C-alpha cells in the first residue's frame, strides 16, 4: 500500500524526548520553508505524524469500507470520544464529534423548537457565522421565531465588566418584554418561553478568553440556557472540567488547537439536555430509535448513535484525535504545551507592541491564553470624529495586509478591526519563538507605512 511520501517528521519515537519547544519542533509540521505561522488560531495544523496516521485511516476506509465501518470504525470512534471526554471532564456518552463548531452550534440552535417570544442573546464579538446563525433563526418570515439580541462589548474589559455587561443586557431585554414568561428554564417541563445565551469561551476576533464559567453560573441562577461557543478552547484552555462548569451545551474545534486533522469538533450535551437534540444535522438513519443499539448488544443513547454516522463523510478527522493526543502527550502534555504558549503569547505581544510603537489589547493579562492582540500603527477612530475607515478603505486595508503578509513577507497572523482600531492577532504555538513575533512586527511596521502612503486620508489623521 503506497502512502503519501512525507518528510522525516512524520514519525517520532515516543521513548525519546522531543526537541525543545520552538523552531526545533517545526520539522514535525508540513509548513513551507520560511513560512512564519503565527496564525494557528485560524485553521489549526496537524503535525505530520497525525497526518500520516490520518492517511492510513483514510486509505483503509477506501480500500475496505465495509470492514472499516463495521469492525474498525466504531471502536476507534469510541476510543476517540473517551479520550476527549476525559480531557474535558465529561462522560463519554455526552460527547460526540461533528464537522466543526459552526455545525455543532447550528445543531443545538436548530434543534431548539423556537416559540414566538423566545430570546437568543449573543454578543457583538460573537463569531460572524455563529452570529449569522442566530440572525437566521430570527429571520424566519413568520412565526414562530426567536428574537435575537447582541450585547455590545468593547474590549478590553475586565472579567467583572464583562459579567456586568451581560447582566445589564439581560435585564434590559427582559424589561423590553415584560409580558413574556421565560419559564422554559433548563430542567423545567417545557412550558413558556426560553431565554438562550450564546457565550464565547474564547472570542476569535479579538482572540480573548471570557469568564465563561462565571457566565454559565449566572445563566443557571437566572434560568437561562447557556450555549458555549468554545471553538478555541480544547487544546488551549486547561482544566475545562465540564461536569463541574455545567454549561447546557458546549462546542469546540479539535482542529484548531488540539492538532487533529481538519476538520473535527466536539459537541458536548449533558445527559439532562440530550432530549433537546432530537436529530443530528443532517438527520441520520438512527433517528427515531429510543436507544439505538449500534454496538453488539450494548445500547447507546440516541444522541450518540445518531452522531456516529450522520451521512457519509470522511471519518479520519474524528479518529485523528487519538493520535493528536498521543503526540501532545509526547511533547509533555497539555499543561506543558499551554504553559509555553501562554508565556510566549504574553512576551510576544509585548515585544510586538514595542516594535510597532503601539500597545497590547489586554494589558492586564486576564483575557490572554495563547493568543495576543496588538494594535497596528494605523490611525484610531476617535468617538465623535468622522471615521476614515469607510467600507472601501477597510476592504483595501484588509486585502493589502493579506497580500503583503502572505506573498511579500510570508508571515501569517489575523487582522481585525475593533473599537475603532486595527489589531493583529498572533497565535503562540509550540513551533514559534519570540523572533517570529519580532519578524511579524518588522513586516507589519513596513506594511502599515505602505498603507498610509497609499491611502492619503490616513496621513491626515492625528495618530
Amino acid at each position, binding site marked *: 500500500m*503506497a502512502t*503519501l*511520501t512525507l518528510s522525516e517528521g512524520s514519525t517520532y519515537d515516543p521513548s525519546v524526548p522531543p526537541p525543545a519547544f520552538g523552531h526545533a519542533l517545526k520539522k514535525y509540521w*508540513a*509548513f*513551507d520553508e520560511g*513560512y512564519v*505561522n503565527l*496564525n494557528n488560531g*485560524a*485553521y*489549526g495544523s496537524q503535525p505530520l505524524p497525525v*497526518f500520516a496516521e490520518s492517511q492510513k485511516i*483514510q*486509505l483503509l476506509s*477506501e*480500500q*475496505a469500507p*465495509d*470492514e472499516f465501518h*463495521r469492525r474498525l470504525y466504531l471502536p476507534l470512534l469510541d476510543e476517540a470520544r473517551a479520550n476527549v471526554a476525559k480531557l474535558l471532564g465529561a462522560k463519554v456518552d455526552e460527547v460526540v464529534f461533528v*464537522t*466543526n*463548531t*459552526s*455545525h455543532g*452550534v*447550528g445543531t443545538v440552535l*436548530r434543534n431548539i*423548537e423556537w416559540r414566538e417570544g423566545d430570546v437568543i442573546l449573543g454578543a457583538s464579538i460573537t463569531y*460572524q*457565522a*455563529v452570529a*449569522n*446563525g442566530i*440572525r*437566521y433563526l430570527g429571520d*424566519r*418570515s*413568520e412565526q*414562530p421565531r426567536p428574537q435575537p439580541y447582541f450585547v455590545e462589548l468593547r474590549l478590553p474589559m475586565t472579567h467583572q465588566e464583562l459579567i456586568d455587561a451581560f447582566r445589564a443586557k439581560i435585564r434590559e431585554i427582559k424589561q423590553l418584554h415584560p409580558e413574556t414568561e421565560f419559564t422554559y428554564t433548563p430542567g423545567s417541563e417545557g412550558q413558556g418561553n426560553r431565554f438562550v445565551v450564546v457565550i464565547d469561551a474564547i472570542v476569535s476576533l479579538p482572540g480573548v478568553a471570557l469568564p465563561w464559567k462565571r457566565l454559565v453560573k449566572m445563566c443557571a441562577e437566572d434560568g437561562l440556557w447557556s450555549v458555549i461557543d468554545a471553538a478555541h478552547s480544547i487544546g488551549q484552555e486547561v482544566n475545562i472540567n465540564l461536569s463541574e462548569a455545567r454549561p447546557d451545551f458546549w462546542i469546540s*474545534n479539535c*482542529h484548531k488547537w488540539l492538532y487533529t486533522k*481538519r*476538520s473535527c469538533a466536539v459537541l458536548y450535551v449533558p445527559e439532562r439536555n440530550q432530549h433537546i437534540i*432530537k436529530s443530528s*444535522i*443532517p*438527520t*441520520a*438513519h438512527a*433517528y*427515531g430509535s429510543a436507544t439505538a443499539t449500534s454496538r453488539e448488544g450494548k445500547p447507546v443513547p440516541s444522541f450518540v448513535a445518531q452522531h456516529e454516522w450522520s*451521512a*457519509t*463523510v*470522511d471519518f479520519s478527522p474524528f479518529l485523528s484525535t487519538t493520535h493528536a493526543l498521543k503526540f501532545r502527550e509526547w511533547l509533555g502534555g497539555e499543561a506543558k504545551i499551554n504553559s509555553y504558549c501562554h508565556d510566549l503569547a504574553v512576551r510576544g505581544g509585548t515585544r510586538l507592541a514595542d516594535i510597532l510603537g503601539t500597545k497590547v489589547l489586554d494589558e492586564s493579562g486576564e483575557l490572554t491564553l495563547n493568543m495576543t492582540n496588538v494594535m497596528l500603527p494605523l490611525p484610531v477612530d476617535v468617538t465623535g470624529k468622522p471615521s476614515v475607515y469607510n467600507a472601501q478603505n477597510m476592504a483595501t486595508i484588509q486585502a493589502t495586509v*493579506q497580500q503583503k503578509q*502572505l506573498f511579500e513577507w510570508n508571515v*501569517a497572523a489575523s487582522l481585525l478591526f475593533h473599537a475603532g482600531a486595527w489589531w493583529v492577532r498572533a497565535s503562540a504555538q509550540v513551533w514559534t519563538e519570540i523572533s517570529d513575533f519580532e519578524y511579524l512586527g518588522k513586516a507589519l511596521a513596513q506594511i502599515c507605512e505602505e498603507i498610509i502612503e497609499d491611502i492619503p486620508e490616513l496621513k491626515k489623521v492625528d495618530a
Partner: protein
Amino acid sequence: MTGERFSYDSESAPPAFGHPLKKYWAFDKDYINLNHVFAAAAEILLRAEQHPDRFHRVTYMPLLEESRELVAELIGAKLNEVVLVPNATHGLNTVLRSIEWREGDILLGTSTTYGAITKTLKFLGDRSEAPRPVVYSVTYTFPLTHQEIVDTFRTRVRELKFQHAKTRFTNVPGGSDDKGNRFVAVIDSIASNPGVLLPWKELIKVCEEEGIWTVLDAAHSVGQEPNINLSEAKPDFWISNCHKWLYAKRSCAILYVPERNQHIIKSSMPTSHMYGESTPRSRTGEQVPTFVAQHEWTGTQDFSPYLSVKAALRFRQWLGGEDKIHEYCHGLAMKGGVRLAEVMNTKVMDETGVLTLHMTNVLMPLPVDRAGQPPVYTSENLPHINVMLREKLFDDWNVYAAHYYHAGGWWVRASAQVWNEVSDFEYLGMALVAICKEIRTKFFPDVSDA
C-alpha cells in the same frame, strides 16, 4: 504519491475496460476506490498543511469554482445554480430544513426513499408543536413500468389532495403566493434499494401540473445517468453525490438550486459568515448570488473532496468519456444481471431494462412471501438474515453487493463498474447460492424452495 497505480499517462490510450483496469484501483475487496484521485486529493491536503493561510484564503476559491464549473456543465446547469456540499443527505437536509413549513403543508416521500431521508421527513413531521408538515409516503413495489410509477404517483397525489380538501395548496412553484400551503414531493431519480431508475423527468411534469414542489434525491445520478440536463428537466431542487459514481473522493455532493428558487434557501447549513450580505462577493472578488457565496465556506473543513472533482473527471475523460463508460457499465449490468439470475436460477427484477442503468437487481434463492400464505419473514428473522448475508459475503467469499428485502423476497443489487466483467457476477452468484443454502438450512429447514 509514487507507484504505477497512482498515476497514468494521459497521452497514451487506456487499457480495455474490465479486469485490465483494476490496477488503477486498489481494493482488496470488490470496492470502489480510485487511487490516483486519492493521490490528487492527498496532494491538495498537503498543500493545505504547508501553508494553511495561503491555501484557505487564496488558493481554495478558484479551485472550488473550477469544480463547480465542471459539474455544472455535466448536468446542464448554470454555474451559479450549483454549489458543493458534503453529501446528498446534507444537501437534501439543507433544502428540506430551509422550507418554512406551515401547518397543513404536505411532505411526500416514497417507500423506497433512502433511510436517512425518510428519517429527515419524519423528523420534520415530529416537531412537537405547530408548525410542521404532515408526512406521507407513496408505495412502489418493483418491478414497475415507468408508466405504472407515474400512475401510482399521480393517484397518490390526488388521493392526498382529496383527503386534505380543505387545504388550499396555493404556494406552488413559480407562483407568487408564498404564504399559502405547500405540497412538496421528494423524488428519487435512482432509488437505492432496489437500485432502479425512475421516470423522474415525467414525475416532475406531473408535479408541475399538480403544483407540487420537486426535491430530487439524485444521490446515484451523476456519473451513472447520462443526459441529466437539468435546465430542461427543471426540478425545483436536485442533489447528487460525486463520490458514488463520479469517482470523486469521499465526500462531496452537488446541490443544484435554479435561480428562481434560491430565495427559499436563505441560509446554508450551517449558516455562513456570508449570510445577510447585501452584495455578496466570492472570495475571488466577483459578485455572486448569496446562495453561491454562502456555500463557499460553511465552516472549516477538509476541502480536498470538493477539489478532487477535477482529477476525477479528467480520469473519466481519459477512460473514454461519459458515453463510453455508460455504454460499458450499462451493457455489463444487463448481461451481468442475466448471468447472475442464471447462476442462482432466479430472475432479474427488471426484465425490460427500463429501470436499469449501472445497477442490476436479482432475486436471491430464498423463500418468497406470497399473499394469502403465512409470512416466512418476520421482524425477528429479517435482521438476522441481513447480517448473515453481509458477514458471509464478506468473510467467506470476499465479495460484497448490497442486499435487501423487497416485495416479499430477498434481492441482491450488483453495480457494474469499468473494472468489472461478467465473471464477477458469476462469482457473486456462486457465493450467493452457497450462502442462501446455509440461510435456508438455518432459518427455514421446513420450507420448500419457492
